[in-house]
């Protein structure tokens, strides 16, 4: 599955990378983020685009599974 590693990237990079994955036509992919702002921004993006998002913690990182 497509993985977007957005750890250590500052705003708005995580959202840009996720948007690009959506634009490239992936039906499902994961985004890994390591801060709360990026998590909120990705969730707002998926909500705006009408996509499903499932969140789980992996250590200090947050993994967001994005699906159509």
């Amino acid at each position, binding site marked *: 599955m497509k993985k977007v*590693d957005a750890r*250590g*990237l500052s*705003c*708005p990079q995580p959202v840009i990378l996720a*948007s690009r994955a959506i634009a490239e036509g992936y039906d499902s992919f994961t985004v890994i983020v390591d*801060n709360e702002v990026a998590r*909120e921004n990705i969730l707002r993006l998926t909500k705006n685009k009408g996509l499903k998002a499932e969140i789980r913690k992996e250590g200090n990182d947050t993994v967001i599974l994005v699906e159509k």
Partner: protein
Amino acid sequence: MSEFFASRKGIILAGGIIGILASLLQYLGNPPNMGICVACMERDIAGAIGLHRADIVQYIRPEIIGFVLGAFLSSLIFREHKPRGGSAPMIRFFLGIFAMIGALVFLGCPWRALLRLAGGDGNAIVGILGLTTGIIGGVTFLKNGYNLGRSHSQKSLSGWIFPALMLGLFLMLVFRIEFYAGGPIFFSVKGPGAMHAPIWISITAGILIGVVAQRSRFCTMGAIRDVLLIRDYHLISGVGTLLIAAFGLNMILGQFHPGFEGQPIAHTDHVWNFLGMTLSGLAFVLAGGCPGRQLFLAGEGDMDAGIFALGMIIGAGIAHNFALASSPKGVAAFGPAAVITGLIFCLIIGFTMRDKMNT
């Protein structure tokens, strides 16, 4: 509270609080249309510690200190304090310098551009158009893969350095230390630097704004950027509320005076008002946040944002020492050259700092 401030209502409340406090701070003594101006206030701090000797703009502004300490406390309480750094600090330092130079050619950062507009200063419209132009440029770079690289976690105490610096400045303000006769700390006796709300009110307002802005991720540049880049209207609803709240309270307090000529701490050179803010807007996008947001991030432990803020303070020293900063009389001798230099710098950074598209 954590989830609330991430919501649309949360950002609107944050914008409203900031707008009201800005208008009130002006009413209580801060300079006209400058209830809050991150750039101007950092410039006053630079003057107070002697980085420049423009004697009308020297004061340790407690609002700036409050922004950082409020965000610091908030991030500790909500477990978001996360020391990090190492994403092109030197470039961020210079982006900070040029962002400040652009702001001082216009005479205000994006925060003050909004507050100038809320006070009736028509020149602010030109500035905001310039700001938007700079942000459009920055968004174009972002769309083409511009990226300063990843930051990395740092040791936990690293994130305390910038807040500690702010605390030190606050102590120097409270105790008014004179390091030698005629030396720093300098406090203006006339001009905008001599105009300020009582210290305890300023610091309290600053801390309050620091907390709500840290929670809500309030960012003036980000508001426009998000609309252009991803059609997201979240942040701009907060910025719009700031404008409306400050305008409304200015009307009530008699602080609204519409016009272009003779506006307080402003000039009417449209070309350089526009281009000064274009430079700032571009530099803010390339660095990832408006000057306020950089302070809140620095409070959260983001050392790269702290470096940008230090760049802005040094940039203020440079702007006043080398005749780059405008005055109400107009643009200074070397202001235009510095803006052009800054734009060239930002364009080079924007074109060259790119990741491959397939990340």
